[in-house]
């Protein structure tokens, strides 16, 4: 067991006029997750600490937050990898309204997601069996199917911080997943949405999104491919 000093940005809308730093000392294993340390606080020191979490192994996307200044899933980072001089600093995601402690308002994020038609568009009769797709065509969009909608990418993007109307990296990743799916026929409409003033051209290729993605998706590359599709009018 090792001692960790956690510095957590707190805000309770029912009590606080402005955010404050809560400081807590906990004992955890170096191989514990940052989420385990947050649970130590919540379960044994201060039950009012509010955070979202569910799967606890990096697949549900609930617990994205700023850990030592970088967007991470608290259940996907170990103490030994985050501890700096005995301390870990934890804040809510930037760019979305803080509701309570580490919980932010996800509605604007999901509204952007819904705006890019995040579903297969194909009205032709598929027949009684599966549509065929070659392994190469399937591989074309594999990377962007990994997205878990945790918002780590979008809320790491300076363009999104500056302008919340920007659809943001996650919505573009989701659009990419369909635009480059050989079975989909909705690319033109999606590219129109993404080509407008709040679309892909807001991306300044800062690469924060790629660095933030807990699923290892090459987000900036995907955005680049969408830009290219808009510029060339071609998706494949």
């Amino acid at each position, binding site marked *: 067991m090792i001692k960790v000093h956690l510095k957590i940005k707190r805000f309770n809308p029912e009590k606080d006029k402005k955010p404050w730093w809560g400081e807590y000392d906990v004992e955890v294993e170096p191989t514990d997750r940052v989420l385990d340390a947050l649970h130590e606080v919540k379960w044994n020191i201060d039950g009012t600490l509010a955070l979202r979490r569910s799967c606890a192994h990096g697949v549900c996307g609930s617990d994205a937050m700023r850990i030592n200044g970088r967007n991470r899933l608290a259940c996907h980072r170990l103490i030994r990898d985050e501890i700096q001089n005995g301390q870990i600093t934890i804040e809510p995601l930037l760019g979305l309204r803080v*509701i309570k402690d580490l919980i932010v308002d996800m509605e604007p994020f999901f509204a952007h997601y819904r705006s890019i038609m995040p579903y297969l568009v194909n009205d032709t009769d598929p027949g009684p069996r599966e549509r065929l797709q070659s392994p190469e065509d399937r591989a074309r969009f594999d990377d962007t199917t990994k997205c878990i909608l945790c918002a780590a990418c979008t809320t790491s993007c300076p363009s999104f911080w500056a302008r919340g109307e920007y659809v943001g990296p996650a919505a573009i990743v989701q659009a990419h997943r369909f635009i480059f799916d050989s079975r989909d026929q909705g690319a033109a409409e999606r590219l129109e949405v993404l080509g407008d003033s709040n679309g892909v051209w807001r991306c300044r290729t800062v690469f924060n999104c790629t660095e933030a993605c807990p699923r290892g998706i090459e987000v900036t590359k995907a955005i680049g491919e969408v830009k290219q599709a808009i510029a060339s009018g071609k998706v494949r």
Partner: protein
Amino acid sequence: MAQYHQFDAIVVGAGGAGLMAALYASRSVNTAVISKLYPTRSHTGAAQGGISAALGNLEPDKWEWHAYDTVKGSDFLADQDAVDILCREAIDAVIDLEHMGLPFDRTPDGKISQRRFGGHTNNETKKPVMRACHAADRTGHMILQTLYQQCIKNNVKFFDEFQVIDVLVENNVCNGVVAVCLATGETHVFQAKATMIATGGFGKMWRISSNAHSLTGDLPAALLRRGLPLQDMEFYQFHPTGIYKMGILLSEAARGEGAVFINNKGERFMERYAPTMKDLASRDVCSRSIYQEVRAGNGIDGKDYVYLEFRPEVVNRYFQADGNPRRVDAAYMEKRLPDIIDFVRVYMGIDPITQPVPIQPTAHYAMGGIPTDLDTRVLADEKGTIVEGLYAAGEVACVSVHGANRLGTNSLVDLVVYGKRGGIRMAEYAKQASLRPVKQDAHKMGEAVLSAIRDNPGRERPSSLRRDLQTLMDQDVGVFRTGAGLEDAIDRIKALQERYKDIHIDDKGLQFNTDLMEAWELGCLLDLAEVTAFSALSRTESRGAHYREDFPNRDDQNFLKHSVVWKNGGLRVAYKPVRLGRYAPTERKY
């Protein structure tokens, strides 16, 4: 003051079963989904390896073989008419998912790719068959995403982050649910003609568990309090390959691709326990074998774990020994099992391509749950009395297709087949039924329970009670059970229930009071744990995942039957017969 809503159909839970039901119900009636999480956080998304259907894309297969494997896997406790529906309709359900856009991996000729999985066989050769349709090792993620996408396309109404705290059932009629909006703390009453429960499992009663923190059995516990029973609760699956100490699941897909179990002597010990299927024997058999090795002193370093080996050179060595011409390399494993390889690297700090992986069995899946008929209608007793307007599907339900032990991939099959079936049936019902009145004070019972927790000035912290519960369940209601251990477990659970009356929480507020919700969830876990231990004590035989050391044999004469347990007014058990079909019970060997 509570807010009131009216719908033809409501679905509680937004995993695979709930979204499938909502999708189909919403095609013809006004439908809403209520979920304590954002839908994409549901634990369906954690399912890895695949969804079985006898498509026969890579080698001959038949749905009847799938059905036999499922019945055999269940140790003959599954109801065979329910299994026939599952395996026959699985084929269309998987095709349906593909048409919705699910990005399955593909065969060279562009069809849905399939792989081997535990317990799934060619019935003629008895060898493993390629039946599990997959999208890398994130098949559940893809199912969840695809169904959520379709719900958005079809404008399904969602109430995200609403915690249901009570089901309005009286005299075997259901009129809706009571929920708390987590963001505001306000109570909402949802009045509905048809209500479906699809809230998944309750694996957080154990410490070593693959389950999400949210899987606390809230709705089954609410039904127990309303005087309804649960079925087959003694049958809980411990998956053989959890990451040591953490319980995070490493899919059976690893063994489908050739991984093997190895003990401290370097032996592939499954050859002794399951000479034909070996490491792809069913999960109950593998989990017991691992602990038998541990008891024999063959655990690694004498501890309570063994290795899962998926180093390519080890896998290939055993392929060769088995006369299997297949060979794998590192690139292939990375492509087929990217997520679980990442789990091992992140959480254990070791590389499974070059090092063996310490694993131990982990609490994984409830075969038991809310009893239903073939149309997902909830049953009030062992005689088959229907609760009007109430439905259940997915892990929370017990129809029963999994019997005493579920086969890998069949959870996802269950979700889509019975979720769809339930959605269609509840819409049919809602179209001809009328809304029944809900009492003015309908929300009071649920609210009273929450206020009692919030206002309790007690001394106990919920977290320490939860830890004690999980520890005792690991010890006495796990892979191996005895009558004495189970009696002791029930006593200790009852003692925890007494201590629970003396809890206190720190957060007295309204908005996102997760302190309050966790404490309430703990109350649900305690009730379900008591019913689980009592059901296990009542079944004095061993079958599937339920292994009694004091009764090590299956006893078809006395126990080829489902248990049905009530909790209101004291624990009570009744039994109902298994519906047999083509397959007579025989000794189960792999």
